[in-house]
């Protein structure tokens, strides 16, 4: 057992995958709690499609993938948030519109340049081979910034998630913090999407939060539980991916799904006991 783990970690690409993956899982779990509670879950999905489009364009232009994708997705995140808040177009429709458009542009660009090949397959479903060592440096730096900002603004993020009107009335600039959450989410998604895949990265945001909410009763415990759960699920998933040669993203999602099932059952049992008492 230990032998196989040591062997797994002797590959540099696995070490890179673990480093970036753990940090991204941590960030997405923290942000996910707010997004799920504020009914913004689909923003993650929308942004990953925008990220796909941006990566395709970056590849066609031979530019550095992260340097192109991050600004584009950040802009998209701010835009989506604005659109969700205004009543002219409903948020879910706007997200569907933007995400499918970006996906279409990405596919068009790819098919006109390199053609549909394994790269596209990896973009879609994720690959543990995706991270280069420059990517790792940038990812580590950005995730640390995301984590630091989240911890620093934790109390304010709680306040605007729970009750935006009250928070605003007591002088918290809700728009600013909503934008902050959107920008941090955008960065996190771009960092994680090549490993997890466009189609599956949003699960990193949604699953840990939903799973923890089955049994946790306080905001702090939901946050902590999500963070730990997310990292554990990622490590198991990525190991599965390594041993069975399955796509990384899908493996992690399946582990998350199993965890959700376990937590749901525990939650139901707890509820039952409470009623019996």
């Amino acid at each position: 057992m230990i032998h196989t783990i040591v062997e797994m970690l002797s590959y540099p690409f696995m070490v890179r995958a673990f480093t970036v993956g753990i940090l991204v899982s941590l960030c997405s779990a923290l942000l996910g709690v707010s997004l799920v509670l504020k009914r913004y879950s689909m923003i993650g999905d929308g942004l990953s499609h925008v990220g796909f489009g941006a990566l395709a364009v970056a590849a066609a232009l031979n530019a550095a993938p992260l340097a192109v994708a991050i600004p584009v997705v950040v802009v998209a995140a701010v835009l989506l948030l604005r659109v969700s808040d205004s009543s002219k177009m409903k948020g879910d429709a706007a997200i569907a519109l933007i995400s499918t458009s970006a996906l279409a542009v990405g596919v068009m660009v790819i098919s006109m340049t390199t053609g549909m090949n394994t790269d596209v397959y990896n973009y879609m479903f994720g690959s543990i081979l995706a991270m280069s060592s420059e990517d790792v440096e940038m990812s580590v730096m950005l995730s640390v910034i995301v984590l630091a900002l989240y911890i620093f603004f934790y109390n304010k993020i709680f306040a605007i998630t729970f009750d935006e009107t009250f928070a605003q009335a007591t002088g918290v600039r809700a728009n600013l913090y909503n934008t902050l959450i959107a920008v941090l989410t955008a960065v996190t998604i771009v960092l994680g999407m090549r490993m997890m895949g466009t189609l599956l990265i949003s699960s990193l945001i949604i699953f840990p939060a939903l799973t923890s909410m089955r049994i946790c009763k306080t905001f702090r415990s939901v946050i902590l539980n999500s963070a730990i759960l997310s990292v554990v699920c990622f490590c198991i998933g990525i190991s599965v991916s390594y041993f069975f040669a399955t796509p990384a993203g899908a493996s992690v999602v399946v582990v998350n799904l199993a965890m959700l099932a376990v937590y749901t059952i525990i939650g139901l049992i707890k509820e039952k006991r409470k009623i019996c008492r």
Partner: protein
Amino acid sequence: MALVQCDNISIAYEGQTVVYDLSFEIHQGDYLCIVGENGSGKSTLVKSLIGLKSPSKGKIILNDGLRQNEIGYLPQQNDVQKDFPASVYEVVLSGRLNSRGFRPFYTAGDKKAAKENMQLLGIERLGKNCFRDLSGGQKQRVLLARALCATKKLLLLDEPVTGLDPIVTAEFYQLIKEVNEKSKIAVVMVSHDIESAVRDASHILHLQETALFFGTTEDYRKSPVGRQFIKSGQIQPEAEKTAGGERS
């Protein structure tokens, strides 16, 4: 000097005037009820009082060192809170955010203030409970404790008893009256319940896009507009929920 002073204010949404030429004052220790029919501009006025919507004409002046972010506000319940995982203590403590400014973490003083307010409202035992598991009346107490954490001078309650049963409603009114009398905190309450308004409040503002009446409750009982409104009794509280002029 008046705690809050509104001189001839008008409030408009996208060019449409919702409230016009409104003047009234709130003094320390007052208990003001804002009554009025559906779409009379009550919710709009509340938004202006908490500083989310500035008046299109005139100004709302806060005196006596009352700052804009020091109004203890109890909003109408929102959907998010129905399944929100947060402990009662976390919710109450979040009322102290306005004293934090840019500093990120709560101090021992903040925690003490939160506990004191929970004690005052009789919810100290619920501290570790989950907000979503509470009854309607308990939830309102928690939100009131949070509002008290945010203010020393003025509470603003927006239809606080919507959806509560009669017994819990009566308890809640009693609680607000006690807070008003004991702590000398001014209370402003938007209400449908005209009976309890004239029973508890010291002042009445009858809003119908402008002030149909503003003055003491005594005078309101005698005034023609007051007499008619009191006679007609409660005005469909349920219908208000859907048509209540929520122009956000």
